[in-house]
């Protein structure tokens, strides 16, 4: 395909199509609306379904319903809508229905500032729904990465039967960059594992070697029950602790034992680096430039860009902290991912650079912090 100039939000739409997404339900909200507009145009061309629902609650519900019916499904929203989706993120985690939720972060809380950038939803993406649950959250730093990580989000979602949240910010969602999209048939696509056992043998939530039970789509001849209540291997509600415990353990284990696959981190750390800047999303762009400037001034500085922010890359950050003296965490909030970095950095110094007024953190600010030691 010829290179194209496009927005991050558009790249998310193309990435979804490349990943095999055939269902989108959403509700208009700045700064994510371009995803919906783009897919309302493109999905019907490939036989996919697009529907604008009455709110964000219904949007994610429709996505889960469509996924149960066998279509790869996605919705996109921003802060206020993301808050409304929390119950169904928990429902998808509980019922193990694959779906992708895009949150193009804007400045909050509440209506906040719809057209200003923020990274304020980091903790909400992890803990927004009630109860302990596994979740995967990916965060791109560029338009090309928005395409790539959307594909990855679908693949993780299908592979691990879990909701995956793609956390953009207004900067990445709205900026335009050149993108060389690969031919869609060359993109690696993962589809949920189905089943071919006789229907009477099928256990929708039974044990499996991978901890991810095979998923039969509704209408495929396997009749079974799905519920947001704790359920036994047949999917029927249970109050028994000896059935609840194994479920809770299994759904966390299916993510934890695959961290090597799920954790995506870009490391650029010279030997003997005194300082390492750890960042993600749009802030990682400023961080990259700051590190470049610092190196021109002969500072030994490393750069770590987290593409997977949840599950938090504990092992990686812990190892990096061991090999350096100081970590700097710039982010467009008052310190959310920094809490995790501090948790695993041991006694190493962690310096935060925070801003929550809608403006990006500049490379100059990060550079000053690198030089201040």
């Amino acid at each position: 395909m010829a290179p194209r100039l496009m927005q991050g939000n558009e790249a998310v739409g193309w990435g979804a199509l490349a990943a095999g997404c055939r269902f989108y339900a959403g509700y208009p909200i700045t700064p994510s609306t371009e995803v919906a507009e783009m897919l309302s145009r493109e999905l019907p061309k490939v036989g996919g379904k697009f529907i604008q629902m009455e709110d964000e609650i219904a949007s994610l519900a429709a996505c889960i319903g469509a996924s149960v019916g066998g279509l790869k499904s996605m919705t996109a929203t921003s802060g206020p809508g993301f808050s409304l989706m929390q119950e169904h993120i928990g429902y998808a985690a509980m019922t193990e229905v694959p779906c992708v939720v895009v949150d193009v972060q804007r400045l909050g809380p509440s209506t906040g500032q719809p057209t200003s950038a923020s990274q304020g939803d980091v903790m909400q993406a992890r803990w927004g729904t009630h109860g302990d649950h596994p979740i995967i959250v990916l965060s791109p730093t560029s338009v090309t990465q928005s395409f790539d990580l959307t594909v990855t989000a679908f693949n993780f979602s299908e592979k691990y039967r879990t909701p995956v949240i793609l956390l953009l910010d207004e900067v990445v969602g709205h900026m335009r960059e050149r993108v060389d999209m690969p031919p869609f048939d060359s993109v690696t696509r993962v589809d949920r594992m189905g089943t071919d056992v006789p229907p009477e043998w099928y256990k929708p939530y039974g044990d499996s070697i991978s901890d991810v039970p095979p998923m039969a789509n509704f209408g495929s001849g396997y009749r079974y029950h799905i519920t947001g209540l704790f359920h036994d291997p047949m999917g029927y509600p249970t109050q028994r602790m000896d059935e609840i415990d194994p479920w809770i353990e299994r759904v966390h284990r299916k993510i934890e034992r695959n961290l090597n696959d799920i954790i995506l981190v870009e490391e650029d750390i010279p030997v003997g680096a005194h300082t390492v800047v750890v960042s993600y999303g749009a802030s990682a762009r400023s961080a990259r430039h700051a590190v470049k400037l610092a190196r021109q001034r002969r500072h030994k500085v490393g750069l770590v860009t987290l593409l997977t922010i949840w599950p938090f890359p504990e092992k990686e950050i812990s190892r990096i902290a061991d090999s350096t003296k100081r970590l700097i965490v710039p982010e467009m909030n008052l310190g959310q991912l920094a809490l995790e970095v501090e948790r695993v950095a041991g006694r190493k110094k962690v310096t935060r650079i925070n801003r929550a007024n809608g403006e990006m953190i500049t490379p100059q600010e990060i550079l000053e912090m690198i030089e201040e030691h």
Partner: protein
Amino acid sequence: MSREEHSAYTYLRPTKKFPNVWCSGCGIGIVMSALIRAISRLELEKDDIALVSGIGCTGRMPVYMDFNTIHTTHGRALAFATGLKLAQPKLKVIVIMGDGDAIAIGGNHFIHSARRNMDLTAIVVNNSIYGMTGGQYSPTTPLDGKATTAPYGNIEPPMPICEVAIAAGASYVARSTVYHAVEMDRFLEQAISRTGFSLVEAVSYCHTTFGRLNKLGSPVDMMRSLKENSVSITAAEKLTPEERATKIVRGVLWDVPKPSYIELYDKILQRAQEATYAK
């Protein structure tokens, strides 16, 4: 055992632990058996039916039934069903809800599903109370009725479920009661065989909470009052508006076919694909 009673087992899950969660004397079981009879008469394949529910006493129905069943979140069953229907248009998607589920927390989805004329059959079991949580007033609790959260009487006028659906754009709307089970069988059969959004309101009662708080007697007494306080739509026409307002009007209140969402969406697919290939 009659032939029809026997046939119910065909549609129930042999693997599910009975008895069910409902209080003895509850009307929800009557709606479940009416649904089974309607599906049996339509000779639908179990694989081709999806039963979607929300939360509440009525929301527990799908787990007992041998279809593709999904017990979703409170109020959102229609939204889940919308996605499922779009993904699998060949499925008959039936949505079973209570009154609080369908028109309080789920009111937005109820109105918009009707407006879209989405190809779903909605069944609302209206017992005029939140039963599972212990008897709080719902959007259909009668004026002056007592509830655990309306100890001095309810001052909110009840929502006319069927009339709201008609106004919003449903293509088939009928109302019956759990006393009139034979009539309900017929309405459910019609509702399921229609395209577009069809609604059956099944007026029921909750003797455990509403009945006790309002001293309405046993399930038999409450059942009898459904018989005595309801009139068919033809009989209702002969009543004055004041008389009619005190009655439950039973019958097919609306049956006007129009293009359904799925039919119209198929045209969108065609238009988009023609535009693509024309390039």
